[in-house]
């Protein structure tokens, strides 16, 4: 409530002033090991995705289901003029299936979109805040600790490569 009161105590003019003030100063040099993450939630648990591994975040895009034997494959969606397959990120990391496909994260590695339950916010951490973790087959090799809470970081590139390889394999099998 105190935080709420502090935010509420700031008038809009203060926000505008802070915004303008940011442009009045010289660009602050980013920390050399600063890492940008996107905080998401899968099945209610916090996860993170490296910003560098994403090509974009989209909301409320229509996902058209297609017949498939792959459970994680939700369908296809039109993003930036291209049709991209959409996979359920929660199922891919061993979680319960996503209840909706409100949020889509487009992988930079391949034109594959991953649906997640919720988008929290962009997170910028120092590299020291990341800790490696043994991969258990769920494409999580690092864990970011922030605010006393561990947030697994999904290796989106690895995941896209795996999904792509599996798709290719399925395509090969089908031929």
């Amino acid at each position, binding site marked *: 409530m105190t935080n*709420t009161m502090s*935010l509420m105590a700031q008038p809009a003019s203060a*926000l505008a002033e802070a*915004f303008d003030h940011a442009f009045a100063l010289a660009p602050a040099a980013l920390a050399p090991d600063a890492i940008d993450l996107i905080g998401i939630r899968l099945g209610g648990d916090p996860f993170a995705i490296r*910003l*560098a591994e994403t*090509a974009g*975040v989209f909301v409320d895009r229509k996902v058209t289901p297609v017949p498939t034997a792959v459970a994680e494959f939700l369908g296809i969606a039109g993003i930036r003029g291209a049709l991209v397959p959409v996979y359920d990120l929660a199922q891919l990391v061993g979680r319960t299936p996503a209840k909706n496909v409100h949020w889509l994260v487009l992988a930079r590695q391949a034109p594959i979109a991953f649906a997640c339950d919720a988008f929290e*916010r*962009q997170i910028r951490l120092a590299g020291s805040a990341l800790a490696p973790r043994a991969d258990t087959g769920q494409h999580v090799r690092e864990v970011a600790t922030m605010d006393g809470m561990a947030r697994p970081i999904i290796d989106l590139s690895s995941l896209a490569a795996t999904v792509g390889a599996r798709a290719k394999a399925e395509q090969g099998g089908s031929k």
Partner: protein
Amino acid sequence: MRREWTFGRKIAVGLTTKGFLTIMMAVVAFVALQAVVTSKDKVINVDGPLMVRATQLQTVRQQLVSGFRSYLLSGLQDDLDSLLTTRKAFADTITDLKSDANSDDAVKLVAAIEQQFIGYNNATDQIVALRKNGTDIPTALAAYKDQVTPIGTALSAALTDYVTFRQNELIASQTASTRTAQLAEIVIGVIAVLSTLLAVFIVLYLTRALTRQIGTAIGHVQSSSAELQSAANQQASGMKEQTISMNEIATTISELLATSRQIAESSQRVAQIAEQTAGSARTGDDTVDRANQSIGSIRRQVDQIVNHMLELGKKSQQIGSVLDIVAELAEQTNILSINATIEAAGAGESGKRFAIVADEIRKLADRVGASAKEVRSLIEDVRSSVNTTVMATETGSKAVDAGSRQFGDVAQAFRSIAALVATTTEAAREIELSTKQQATAVEQVNMAIANVTQAARETEASTSQTLETASLLASTSNELLRMVQAPAQSEAA
């Protein structure tokens, strides 16, 4: 005489009968005496004078004979005048006898006398004429002897017959008078005997009847006096018990009088308290009315508050809608800034400045989003509070309605209390009045009881007198019984 006749009636009938017999005997005696007097008067006034006249007529005849002889001897005119006078007296006597003749026999006898008298006069007149002619005495005497003496004898015989007749008439009248007197004596004697016998019978009958009835009545009087004594004794004991009971009743009524007065005082206090309660009830009613008016005002204000709160809820909902837009914009801005950052990162060095702008925009969007969340939270709090307030207010409104109804009930209850207290006051006053009247009545009853007690005492005293009177009556009845009955019977009775 009948048994149911009274003594006076019986005695009156007896005395009347006796008096009737006496009167009848007197009447008979009077009638008999009148008959005797009549027969006696007839003997004295009729037969006696007729006998006397007859006797006188014989005497006159003797005088007539004597006078005629005297004239014959003397030849004097005086003797002749005397003879004529005597003759006239004789004729007058015959006339009287004719007028007094009361029977045919008497008329015949008088007529015979008169006839003989006329013959005698004629004979004597011839002799007188002889004497007047100077005839000598012996011749005259001889003529007298031849002519007058037979007629004189016949006249004397007629006179004798008439005297005899009158003597017989006189004797018959005397005999009849004597018989009448004897008959009257017999009748009077018989009536006297009958009257005496009847008087004896009446006396005996009355004596027996009166003795029997008076004895019976005395027996009744004795039994009645005995019963009266017993009743008087019982009445005396009853009067004593009644006197005791009346004293107890008087004591109880005195206590009742004291209780009635206490009730009257209590009723008066109850009336006063009821009047005070009625005043308090009216004050409470006014207070409740004012409170009801205040509750009505509160209810209207609560309705206004509810309306304001509902309006506030609607405004909050509208704010929420606007806030959704703001949050959506912030989210879109955030996504846009993330995508810009992603694009800037892909643009290499030239994209750093754009990355800074995108980062600032993202920060601003984050702040706006956070603020929108906070505002949403606040709006939710406000809406929750509004809902809570509305519910509480509705509850309060219902409570106010219930309170208003309850106040109405309380006001009605106060009015009912006031009415009941008024009724109670009236009832208490009526009780007080009734109790005072009751106390007055009880005092009157107490006085009446005292009078009854006094009367009971007097009755007790009179009962003693009655007892004494009954004893006296018993002794008197014994005396009467002894008076009307023989000693043996009296003792037996």
